[in-house]
């Protein structure tokens, strides 16, 4: 009897899930409906061409798609290294009295609007990266692989570093909370086996693999979706060689931010922009399915 009643309450809770699902479905529906006209006209052509010429109503966004993927992947690599490192530092080494300061600082960092990050990235980060990292490296002869930085220092590389800095507080918080939540008897058991601190940490990180995966998904998501800050430092140039990361480029969301305000003055531009978002959506879907499958197994 009692159990029956509780199950009924639980069924009502599924309403919350339905609301979340419904909202995603509605957003996707808008994406699909708005993309249809350009799909009907060009099919898959916009995915493999790099032209953006509204004057002739020609739209191909391979350059932005590539830019998005390269930027987000690079950012992911940097931010994972930073967030795992800083979370471990916080949970295992930092004296309690510094924790409050660091935690507040990181929470604060996660709350700073991306526009402010963008402004800082443009005025502080870009020149520093250009002078101390990009120029020396391209002088060393790497320029044929990574391209030559422009005088302003804005590039795909700069954007990915800025993104890494932006998503690290969030990713680090997820890992940190999980590390702290590891039951102390497990930790004590590990130490009692005679393992060094580093070995314990390695095992603990294996133990919380799932949360690291969540942090990865969240960071990747934020990196792909970030608009305002990226638009300020990525350079906004139609760059066919988006893999040369020291050159300026575009991402899907910065393309949308740049072009949407005047898109509706043209017949197909708005639809092309929604199409680009739809394609990004499918890429994310694929990545998420892989992560989810992997995550369930862990």
């Amino acid at each position, binding site marked *: 009897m009692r159990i029956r009643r509780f199950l009924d309450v639980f069924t009502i809770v599924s309403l919350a899930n339905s609301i979340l699902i419904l909202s995603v479905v509605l957003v996707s529906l808008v994406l699909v409906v708005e993309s249809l006209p350009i799909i009907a006209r060009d099919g898959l052509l916009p995915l493999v061409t790099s032209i953006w*010429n*509204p004057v*002739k109503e020609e739209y191909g966004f391979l350059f932005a798609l590539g830019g998005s993927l390269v930027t987000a992947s690079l950012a992911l690599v940097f931010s994972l290294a930073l967030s795992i490192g800083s979370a471990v530092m916080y949970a295992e080494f930092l004296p309690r009295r510094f924790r409050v300061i660091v935690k507040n600082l990181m929470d604060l960092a996660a709350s700073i609007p991306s526009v402010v990050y963008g402004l800082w990235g443009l005025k502080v980060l870009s020149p520093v990266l250009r002078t101390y990292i990009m120029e020396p490296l391209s002088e060393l002869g790497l320029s044929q692989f990574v391209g030559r930085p422009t005088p302003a220092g804005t590039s795909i590389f700069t954007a990915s570093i800025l993104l890494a800095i932006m998503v690290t507080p969030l990713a680090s918080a997820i890992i940190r909370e999980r590390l702290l939540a590891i039951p102390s008897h497990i930790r004590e058991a590990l130490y009692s086996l005679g393992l060094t601190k580093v070995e314990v940490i390695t095992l603990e990180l294996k133990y919380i693999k799932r949360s690291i995966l969540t942090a990865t998904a969240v960071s990747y998501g934020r990196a792909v979706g970030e608009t305002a800050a990226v638009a*300020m430092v990525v350079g906004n140039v139609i760059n066919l060689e988006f893999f040369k990361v020291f050159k300026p480029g575009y991402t899907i969301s910065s393309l949308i931010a740049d072009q*949407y*305000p*005047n898109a*509706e*003055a043209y017949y197909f531009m708005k639809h092309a922009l929604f199409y680009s978002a739809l394609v990004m959506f499918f890429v994310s879907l694929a990545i998420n399915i892989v992560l989810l499958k992997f995550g369930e197994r862990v």
Partner: protein
Amino acid sequence: MEHSLRSRVTKTRRLVLIVGIVLVLSTVGSLIVQKQISQTETATVNPQPESKTTSRLVYITGGGASFINPQMQAWIRVFMEKTGGTISINYQSIGSGAGEAKWLEGALDFGASDIAISKTGYEKLKESGKRFIQVPIIAGSVALVYNLPRFSEAGCTLRLTGETVADIYLGKIIRWSDPRIVELQEGRCRNFLPDAEIFGIHRSDGSGTTALFTMYLSLVSREWAERVGYGYTVTWPRDALGLGEGARGNEGVSAKVQATPNSIGYVELAYAVQLKLPVAMLRNRDGYFVYPNATTVMEALRAAAKELPGPQEFWGDLPLKHYMNREGRLSYPIVGTPAVFMYIDLPKDLADALYEFFKWVLTEGQKPENIVEGFIPLPEEMRIKALQYLELLKPRG
């Protein structure tokens, strides 16, 4: 025992948290409300004559061109003070194209654009059969800015023609020392031009500024018209050579030009004035080199005012046909008139409020004390015509 005590403590703390947040929010909220009430109170103490026509509060939402945003906010501020808060106007810079589109979709009471209603927009309007007006409200012009430290230090000012500017952005002129540029300069300045590559900076976001600039280039260079064309966004041939780059917003272009020696860019005049960037002189149709300023821009628009089409006609390529590269010794060649769009058949209080605001904009608003630094008012001929168009908004009887 201990556990239940602890949980009670937790509950108390949670309560404290909630109460705290509510307190903070409500204190600030009520302070704001109070402030607003006191504002309206002071306003009712000194009612202005204008406020007689509208008894209850009207809230107007408008949006569009980002270029006119500073001027719009300044007008709104002064106007709202004058009318004592009976009309609230909210203008947001969402871009010219979006201003037009969202107005068409009925999300805005008025839209604003750097250029006139687009062809797609005009077709939609014809289809819907709704009556509307478009009214120019301010003058606009595009300035060429550059960064040539040695040249500027020598007290020289860059002189360019439309054809050379087109050739620079087409990638046909590579260096500053190209004879086609050198021959335009004053004799003593010719030696100060560096033998360096020109770095061509342009807007990366779609913008009315780009539309005006590329319209002008299409007008003066046949090759530009055929290869590139004009619009809010175009494909820049110079980028393909690795000698050009985009930047976001007028602000972004100005910043990039400032940061990059040997670069050239184009911005709305107000930004060039604000940021004190070196501005190039352009050769006009009569062969004189002119700066963009109040005199030269108004002179060009004065010549164009006579040919302004009716408020409900398709203005489309208006700047191209009537405004740009006009005759006259003092005419600056790249000019336009940002305009606002409104539907005619509106609820009476809304129509009255819109009429009252834009009438004020076109009379008091054009006086120097209400013009923001860097902006240029409409010439008299254009202003009178705009006021005539606005009269269509006034419900008859």
